[in-house]
């Protein structure tokens, strides 16, 4: 139990980031801040993956003389892919925000939803 904080240090960081990101997604009204929160949220999971591949006293997995303990390379590879996916998500999200700003003139969700509902009655 005494080990819980220093021994599982990486988990605590991941959990902290995870919660911060989630709160930011849920709480902020600004669409760009939301995207930032989303990235933090994802980073937390990436961190968890990467630290889990670390083996104590393990070296980079290169076949060389005198090295017999390797860190697990697979999580790194997976996270590389996940980072790419995350970047793509952010890009699409920001592109949408740009379009929303063009259409509504703001990136604040409250401002958009507080407007009286202008239902286009008849779409041409």
């Amino acid at each position, binding site marked *: 139990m005494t080990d819980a904080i220093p021994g599982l240090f990486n988990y605590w960081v991941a959990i902290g980031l995870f919660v911060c990101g989630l709160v930011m997604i849920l709480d902020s009204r600004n669409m760009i801040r939301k995207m930032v929160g989303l990235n933090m*949220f*994802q980073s937390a999971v990436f961190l968890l993956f990467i630290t889990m591949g670390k083996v104590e006293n393990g070296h980079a997995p290169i076949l060389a003389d005198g090295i017999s303990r390797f860190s697990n390379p697979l999580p790194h590879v997976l996270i590389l892919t996940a980072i790419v996916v995350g970047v793509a998500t952010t890009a699409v999200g920001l592109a949408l*925000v740009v*379009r*929303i700003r063009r259409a509504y003139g703001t990136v604040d969700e409250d401002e958009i939803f507080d407007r009286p509902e202008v239902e286009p009655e008849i779409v041409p």
Partner: protein
Amino acid sequence: MISSALKHLPVLQVVVPLLVAALCVLAGSRFLARTALILTALVMLSISLMLAGQVYPDGVISYALGGWPPPWGIEYRIDMLTVFVLITINLVNLAAAVFALGRNDDNLGRGAHAAFYAAWLLCMAGLNGMVVTNDAFNVFVFLEISSLATYVLIGCGRDPRALLASYRYLVMGAVGATFILLSIGLLYMHTGTLNLTDLAQRIDARGANRTVIMALAFLIIGLGIKCAMMPLHDWLPNAYSFAPNSVTVLLSGTATKVALYVLLRFVHDLFGVDHALSVPVDIVLVACAISGMLVAPLIALRESNLKRMFAWSSVAQISYIILAIGLGTGAGVAAALVHLFNHSIIKVAVFMAVGILIARTGTARIRHLGSVAHTHRFACYTLLFGGLGLIGLPGTPGFVSKWVLVSAVVERGWWWLAIPVLAGSLASAAYVWRIVEILWAKPADIPLQQTRSPLAFVEWFPLVVVMGLVLWFGLHASLVTGWAGLAAAALTGNGS
């Protein structure tokens, strides 16, 4: 040459749309992109059917991607369940692709069409990939490919609110996907493998501990978002109602269905019913399902927008599938698959009819649609018959689903669950009949700028074909239920 191509069918199912998507962007021409879309959709459906032909005698096809043998390499694994879902989504894709050639209600500028169709193909590549792959991380990657394409497709709606709907779906979808990633990470921590079959065996051998249970919890939340399980359904109504008509048709029959398939795979195959049920997964799923099948129709009843009303109906119908999954029995899995197929074809027909109606009358507001049934007979009658299917009246596929589901419920010993199921159909009857009453009996209150343009071939043809399927499978359901039974056997056989 041909025989070697036949061996590579599992990967072709994914690679073909992926490549054609890239070619579409390069070609940049609307005509070429459209032709490519239709041809690819045809090829994809043919591949699914050929895979079915191969799997039926052999049982299982295991395809090692790049020649790396499983469990180290990525494995594509085709069994009866996989082909069932593949055929369903590729059939829907073909119908929606043809329908997309008509009036689409989108805001695409000149030159954007090729990109639109490329996104469409990417979406299908991702969905097909999620179905064929047997690798947990691969599921995540394909999920994100299809989701990103979906956000783009939804954002193409004419109404500016489509952008908002797309953005909100993006945020929720990304959170969901991250949950799934986290769950996969936890599973990898526990077992050290990503191959689903291998994972299932190792979890089975080591038993469930807290890591596995956490993984399961994150997974259910993540997939619950993607498949619009009741408390996590928030994105769906707006996404469906503001997306271009053809995209709504596509999504209603594919995206949520594939998420449900993955849920089915993970809950039953990976965790095995025993482990999944050591925590009350069944209670959670059943509770969400009941709330969905009772609450969603009531919201649909008060909805003022035709498309969003049927989107709520989708939330309700998805709940039936989740209920069937939550039963945790072979009959439950079969019932889930039967409804997965039946709901796909019914909803595709309904959304096509809605699309035609909106394109002709120029409005989706229900109260403005008084008496349009007299001028737009074809769309309204298909809407009516589709609606009867949603209620689940005998003679429609909806009845078959409900019959199989209620039988599974009774077999599980939870006969009281039949009551919310039937109450749900009654609630669906209420919202369907509200529309029917307005379409046929309410006097037209404002003169609509109706376009009397005759129906284009690409509009009526896919609708007639899908409607034919609906009629056929309403009366001859043995093929669907029989296949679903085989698929369920493949799944529950794998898990143990």
